[in-house]
């Protein structure tokens, strides 16, 4: 019975692996379908280590299965007295040496890759005109949202990271309140956002996010950071370099003109926004980071409300009406505190929602 069980388990592990590796998981989220060089390197390491480890498991299970089948009491007899073997130096040396060899096979690529992935020299590289050669993004993690600042371009956004494909993008990561961790599973491994210091690494985005189910890669906060840790998501849009440049230009342009709302409702929304929300939320993407609330310049282009709610008018209204309900512990004030002690009426909420949905640089 034990034998049957073990075989069954081994078989199902292999079967499960095959199924999961090929089919399951969302392309925009799974580490098994990497869309960037870093993630691919990590997946290679995973396949190598899994291979070695499955080999170890197979050997162990083989000896194990034979031992418990062959030497059970019902086979060898109730009174059988086994030889009291002390040990075997040869065998003990063999199972010390072989694991060491297996681990060396894994250790060498591990060390190489560790240094590769930590190489951020390209961050400070300048071309002949003194401009940065590579794109650098400053990521600031806050309770419970993300700010993305492009220091060399003079552009800032939040909740949706926009990056060009096919090149290294460097990141400066820090937290402004408690520790968080910046993770885009489908692109590459994570790095903590510490409060004390800046962490740096790079990622490459080899595929455009346009073709994905949601048109974005999913980003996560991986370090417990309070009640709404689970909801601290962000999204990543990767696009070819030209589209990215266009995006940057339109972001810069938002600095020159005040976003003017189209239509009467939206104008009403804009007035409300300027009276109640403007002291925290910026609606211009030009400038630098450090905002106390998410920059809403690209709100209309976003994929989610507050990082996780479906992006529609209903949710925008519900969110503004009671942000603490959706993301407990976040820093957005309840509407009473910013609207002369009253909640927004349904009409006002609709106006705000319409105004916010109109904030766009991509359309």
């Amino acid at each position, binding site marked *: 019975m034990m034998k049957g069980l073990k075989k069954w388990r081994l078989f199902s592990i292999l079967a499960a692996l095959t199924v999961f590796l090929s089919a399951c998981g969302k392309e925009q989220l799974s580490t098994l379908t990497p869309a960037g060089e870093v993630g691919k390197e990590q997946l290679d390491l995973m396949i190598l280590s899994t291979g070695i480890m499955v080999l170890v498991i197979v050997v162990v299970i083989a000896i194990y299965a034979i031992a418990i089948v062959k030497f059970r009491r019902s086979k060898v007899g109730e009174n059988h007295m086994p030889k009291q073997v002390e040990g075997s130096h040869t065998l003990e040396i063999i199972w010390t040496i072989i694991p060491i060899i297996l681990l060396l096979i894994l250790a060498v690529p*591990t060390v190489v890759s560790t240094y590769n992935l930590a190489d951020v020299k390209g961050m400070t590289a300048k071309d002949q005109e003194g401009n940065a050669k590579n794109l650098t993004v400053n990521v600031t993690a806050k309770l419970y949202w993300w700010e993305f600042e492009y220091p060399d371009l003079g552009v800032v956004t939040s909740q949706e990271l926009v990056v060009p494909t096919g090149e290294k993008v460097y990141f400066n990561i820090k937290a402004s309140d408690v520790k968080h961790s910046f993770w885009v599973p489908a692109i590459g491994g994570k790095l903590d956002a510490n409060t004390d210091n800046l962490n740096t690494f790079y990622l490459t985005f080899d595929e455009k996010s346009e073709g994905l189910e949601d048109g974005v890669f999913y980003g996560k906060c991986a370090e*417990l950071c309070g009640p709404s840790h689970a909801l601290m998501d962000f999204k990543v849009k990767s696009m070819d370099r030209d589209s990215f440049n266009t995006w940057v230009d339109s972001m810069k342009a938002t600095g020159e003109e005040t976003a003017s709302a189209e239509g009467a409702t939206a104008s009403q929304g804009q007035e409300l926004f300027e009276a109640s929300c403007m002291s925290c939320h910026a609606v211009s993407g030009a400038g630098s980071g450090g905002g106390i609330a998410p920059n809403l310049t690209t709100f209309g282009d976003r994929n989610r409300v507050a990082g996780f709610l479906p992006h529609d008018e209903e949710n925008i209204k519900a969110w503004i009406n009671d942000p603490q309900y959706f993301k407990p512990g976040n820093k957005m004030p309840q509407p009473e505190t910013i609207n002369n002690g009253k909640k927004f009426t349904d009409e006002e909420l609709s106006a705000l929602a319409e105004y916010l949905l109109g904030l766009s640089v991509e359309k």
Partner: protein
Amino acid sequence: MSSIAQKRGFGATLWEYLTTIDHKKIAILYLLSGGLFFVVGGIEAMLIRIQLAQPDNDFVSAGLFNQIITMHGTTMIFLAAMPLLFGFMNAVVPLQIGARDVAFPFLNSLGFWLFFFGGVFLNLSWFLGGAPDAGWTSYASLSIYSPGHGIDFYALGLQISGAGTLIAGINFLVTIINMRAPGMTYMRMPLFTWTTFVASALILFAFPPLTIGLFLMIFDRMFGANFFDHTMGGNTIIWEHLFWIFGHPEVYILVLPAFGIFSEIFPIFSRKRLFGYSSMVFATVLIGFLGFMVWAHHMFTTGLGATANAIFAVATMAIAVPTGVKIFNWLLTMWGGNIRFATPMIYAVAFIPTFVAGGVTGVMQAAAPLDYQLHDSYFIVAHFHYVIVGGVVLALLAGLHLYWPIMTNKLLSETMGKWTFWLFFIGFHLTFFIQHFLGLLGMPRRVFTYGADQGWDTFNLISSSGAVLMAAGVIILLVNIVMSLMSKDYVGRDPWGDGRTLEWAIPQPVPFYNFEKTPLVRGLDTFWIEKQEGNEEGMVYAEPLGDIHMPNNSIIPLIMAFGLFVAAFGAMYHQDEGKGWTLIFLIIGLLITLGSMAVRSLKDDLGYHVHKEDLPSYKGGNE
């Protein structure tokens, strides 16, 4: 004084247990309270799995969920796994080395009561305004930021409990170094004693960093110190280092005694001596040593830099070698043996593939760049449950069945034992195997909910259903325990028939002085040697029958620990505005502790003698 058990009233029995300093009774106290906390931690685990059974669930709120995961981890590690292991160490180690008790019986009792009051204090947080909510690792930025008293409960409770653990660890070190019976050289010590020894050494070196870390945190929160406040020159990463310099060895503090239990089980139920004894000992010591060298593998993503990550990656992989040696030695112990599948052996047999699976995912995480993907994802959750449940909890369940007769002179039901095993084992794999994939599919750990559109629904549901099976297994175990305690089927000495070490040679029920005469140890597997040579009694002795000196029971350890419990309340509420009584509480609590220490120091307590005329084997005065 007589060694013959007497019928006693409930009050007398209770008093006996509150004042006992006998290692066998303290073992039972550890098992009872550890078992209680294990059930509490298990209920917390069930709440977690109910909440995560389906996406966008609102069974518990976000804040409450964080309290539950924090308390689940803290309880299981500090208040369940470790005390339960201490229970077995107390029950078995003195018997295994032929000692009358541990080296410091009074301290042994103090260690227990400190652990107990620390654990009670920690769990009272549920009723006094909220439990800690920054994860069992309590990373500094979040724990400093956390409002309310949750983190204070964590810091003070663990501080008291940790003091108890440190005392217990030192006690076992001294006991094993000093109190081995004549002839028991280090290389004749049974493996459970060896692993207890190494684990105790780890406690000695690993708990002080935790103590320091907790003190810094208490000072930050109570007195407004700024060790961890970066805006005032503090540094949060210091906490991570202090915590993991404790936290990584802690894993080995738990798993080495578990290895010890399995190293006892394989020879007994294979009727064959442990294969490669000396390499097992060497591997144990090496694992203990390397356990201290690898703490930063918990911090690969903290940003320590490539060199630190590379060094710690390779050092971590190195641990796989001695662990592998152990696995193969166990396999070869079974090889050529005569394997009997009694309940303890089933757990031991199940442990091998489970722990190997947990071990290899550990090696995968040791590859730092791969860990950037795996860290803080559900893959990690799967990994450490494979190690801690697959290693430690299986050992605890195995050890419970194995050593039950030594503690109670009865057996647990084999039928129910096997039901427990299968439910628990299948439930365990169902719960945690699938979590590897959840991690690979991008699910971070410690999330109280997840969106329905992320492809994690089915796996989470499977995981939760496995947890139900585990719970069912534990319930059957509890029934088994109660039924066994009520039964009158006494088993006597060496109930498994193939006992090899000294603890199986002792007559049942074990007299409170353990050995009338100190035994003489003539080799590894002492009892086995005597049995093979036809010695009916199972022991030869190193000394003639004489009076036995025993220490007196004492209520002082309980009072000492209680004083700290009272003081902790004073310390905790002292930071609140306008609570003058807190200072009084703090002072009274400390006075209780210091006062009882003074009483203990000033009052001579010389113990008493069990006269040889009262010993059962005394026959007329001449030996």
